[in-house]
């Protein structure tokens, strides 16, 4: 498999953010979005292709975890938090 290209990494980043916005629990949703942004930002200057591949593989596994947990969260969703109605922007 060819080393991960910039485009692939960006695709993964977008997919993870997109999926994370579907968490029904406020705290999980905000954490996932924040953590993904910070993690990709933190690793943006990694040059070693082996390390990049390892990070990409981990991100793919994490994306699967997010998908499953978003599903489950929606099955068992409950009332919103008091501050969710005050501001809608899903940070």
């Amino acid at each position, binding site marked *: 498999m060819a080393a991960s290209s910039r485009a692939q990494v960006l695709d993964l980043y977008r997919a993870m953010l997109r999926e994370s916005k579907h*968490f029904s629990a406020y705290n999980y949703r905000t954490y*996932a979005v924040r953590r993904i942004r910070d993690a990709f930002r933190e690793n943006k200057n990694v040059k070693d292709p082996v390390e990049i591949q390892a990070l990409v593989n981990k991100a793919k596994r994490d994306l699967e*975890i997010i998908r499953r*947990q978003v599903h489950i969260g929606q*099955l068992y*969703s409950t*009332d*919103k938090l008091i501050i*969710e109605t005050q501001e809608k922007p899903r940070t």
Partner: protein
Amino acid sequence: MLLRTAWRRAAAALPAAQGPRPEAPTRGLRLRVVDRAPQSAVPSDTATAAEAETVLRPLYMDVQATTPLDPRVLDAMLPYLINYYGNPHSRTHAYGWESEAAMERARQQVASLIGADPREIIFTSGATESNNIAIKGVARFYRSRKKHLVTTQTEHKCVLDSCRSLESEGFQVTYLPVKKSGIIDLKELEAAIQPDTSLVSVMAVNNEIGVKQPIAEIGRICSSRKVYFHTDAAQAVGKIPLDVDDMKIDLMSISGHKIYGPKGVGAIYVRRRPRVRVEALQSGGGQERGMRSGTVPTPLVVGLGAACEVAQQEMEYDHKRISKLAERLTQKIMKGLPDVVMNGDPEHHYPGCINLSFAYVEGESLLMALKDVALSSGSACTSASLEPSYVLRAIGTDEDLAHSSIRFGIGRFTTEEEVDYTVEKCIHHVKRLREMSPLWEMVQDGIDLKSIKWTQH
């Protein structure tokens, strides 16, 4: 694609079809209870239910009491709750082997977080059981030659209670006082250790005031005096770096549900080199090296292991974020209100646990007023009694300030918005309650409350 939308619609219908949501205990969880008309047959998306039916949950700012499960932890646990349900002690079939493999993997994850060997980790039902095993187990094993234990006055109830029960068995226990900062005096500790002391137990991070004890120094002292050192690290594991070799720790209690893991599981670290012998509390089939018999709950320990692994990866990131949020909360409150005292040493302090006393305001009334935020005054296990916290009493807090203390907990999932909302509500309600307080009025008029004679005699 069509299948997924149909599934989504069915999934949304499911809670509606099952009737009204499980009744939450009416202790303030239902903030805006509107007359709940019987659910209509139309499977409306639960999120866009009629505007009239808005019941909102409070913000969670009580992470010292317990923490939500990290989604990564739940994801690790589920397979063992669904398909891989074997007993890890069944040696004769694949169900047992796969369960055992998961258990051993979890053991390695826990060990790696604290710098231990997996053989030194024993799974228990929680930090309370671990504390009981450490204190009673060590004391009883060495009872022929050693009859004395040392602990502090600010320990968790289970430690203090274990010591009390040992006293009734004929042991002597020294309860070290703490300084105003909440930290023990190392000289007093050295003086308290006797030739017949078997164990010193000091918690790493206090659950009520967040104070960090000098674990490495205590470990050094205990090691030089040949006394075993136990630390209740329930609030510290995964949050501050701990290494059992660097800090010369012989026994450590770990709690699952304080580090975003499941409730009902914990672990105890028992050093093998030099070997610490422990008399087992729970008899049975000899599981967990004979120290804790009983089937190891694979899904729970897998959760504990996953929580430890996530904590190890996220420790630095979480610590930085939580410190920033804690700084924000404390600064904003202190700037917005006079006469607020932070309990506990500001320097040797875990940032995620902030205990503030609001003078001239009663703690319970403030908690009731802050019904949109889940908070606590003191610890959950002592919240049933009317006494102010013994921890606050131990650090010398005045009786009236002790009654006005609130503990704010900031964790991995806490957001800046939640902190800002909490601060805003807190300032608003403290001001409101103070307006109503005759004591506050007197203080504003310049009367020194300490000079007032409240009784005739």
